């Protein structure tokens, strides 16, 4: 009898206490969730606009002479205007000059570098059958070493006219892009590496090699069908 008398109030206090804890945590949780949702909704359009602008700037950089761009995706057998929901790996951006002629295509590519993914954007000009521009969108490479892929003038010169001619059968490249040690580049389809940034420059080369082998024959065949009339206005 006396035992139950002493335990009961304690139990009551304990439940009261845990209720208080529960209310405090749930209350703070709800308040925090509300704050995050408000910020997310408030900043979402600005962030999307910033990212689109950054990408557009990059497209202008990799396709010289471009004034308007239009996004497309590969649906398996044909190109259609971009709806905005497609995965990045299926996207391609066509660039047009002031007079409305096709300046080329900008494509994203991803390679595995020394410290994580390297995301690049390159420009392909079907008229020259060559890569004409290159820009690093994102990398985590070592500053001063691996990040030379962004700044090294000799390395960037590789992508002013890197040959990606399509083979006679129309389904593959005559020569896939390959890596050459710094200073040992001999052919127009080789990428001259960077001493001290071998892994990073190799990763970029592999990313370009894989992406061009898949996309260039496709784009080369369809190049006539891209004109400003069909471009999507975003």
């Amino acid at each position, binding site marked *: 009898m006396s035992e139950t008398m002493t335990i009961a109030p304690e139990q009551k206090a304990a439940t009261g206490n845990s209720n208080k*804890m529960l209310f405090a945590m749930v209350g703070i949780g709800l308040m925090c969730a509300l*704050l995050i949702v408000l910020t997310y909704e408030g*900043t979402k359009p600005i*962030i999307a606009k910033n990212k689109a602008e950054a990408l557009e700037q990059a497209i202008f950089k990799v396709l010289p002479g471009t004034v308007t761009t239009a996004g497309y995706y590969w649906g398996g057998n044909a190109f259609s205007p971009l709806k905005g929901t497609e995965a990045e790996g299926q996207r391609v951006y066509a660039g047009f000059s002031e007079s409305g002629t096709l300046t080329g295509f900008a494509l994203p590519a991803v390679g595995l570098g020394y410290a994580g993914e390297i995301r690049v954007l390159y420009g392909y000009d079907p008229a020259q059958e060559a890569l004409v521009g290159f820009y690093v969108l994102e990398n*985590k490479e070592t500053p*001063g070493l691996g990040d030379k892929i962004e700044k090294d003038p000799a390395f960037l010169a590789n992508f002013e006219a890197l040959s990606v001619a399509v083979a006679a059968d129309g389904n593959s490249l005559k020569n896939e892009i390959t890596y050459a040690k710094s200073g040992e580049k001999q052919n127009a389809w080789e990428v001259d590496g960077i001493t001290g940034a071998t892994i990073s420059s190799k990763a970029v080369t592999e990313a370009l090699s894989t992406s061009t082998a898949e996309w260039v024959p496709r784009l080369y065949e369809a190049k006539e069908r891209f004109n400003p009339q069909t471009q999507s206005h975003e």
Partner: protein
Amino acid sequence: MNKPTDKSGFFAALEDSPSADTFLRGLWKDNPVFVQVLGMCPVLAVTNTSMNALAMGLATAFVLLMSNVLVSSLRHFIPKQVRIASYILIIATFVTITDYAIMAISVELHKSLGAFISLIVVNCLILSRAEAFASKNTVGQSMLDALGMGVGFTFALLCLGVVREVLGSGSVFGFGLFPDGFQNWIVMILPAGGFFTLAIWLLLFNILKQKRATT
């Protein structure tokens, strides 16, 4: 008692007021980086340029201010058994908000700060101010404390960032200082440079402190 070296009327008047003392403590006497040596992860990692240092400092100061205000205003409501969990929840919320805000301000800046924005959550400076100060003081006092500590942290980050950028990239806030070309000390923008610079600043601060203690 330690006094700032500048003993003009302004500082003397400030020292007498308790609110100003709360503010100045974070800024100088208890500087979170140079005296308390707290939050070393961002101090070493994102001070390779002045801009990164400034952005990181301001982001941390904002989170510190908002979480201190909220913790302090909820201090009678939060049961002590779940206080740490509640503080972390509040801090994480403001870090997420800061993350979105920085992304909205500049994609470029967000790119260069990378994962370190999310890592503000685990900056021990913020949790220590919530636990040691905000949970025991009024909202006004906590706000002053957060401002002092936040400005002090930003100041310390800038001290490192400016030195590292000048020596490592030959510029300040992206503006080149040496038009005739400058052999950049690559090591200064690498992690090792962070340790060197921090060591030199700590040395300077300790010499200053000792001098003041002896006089």
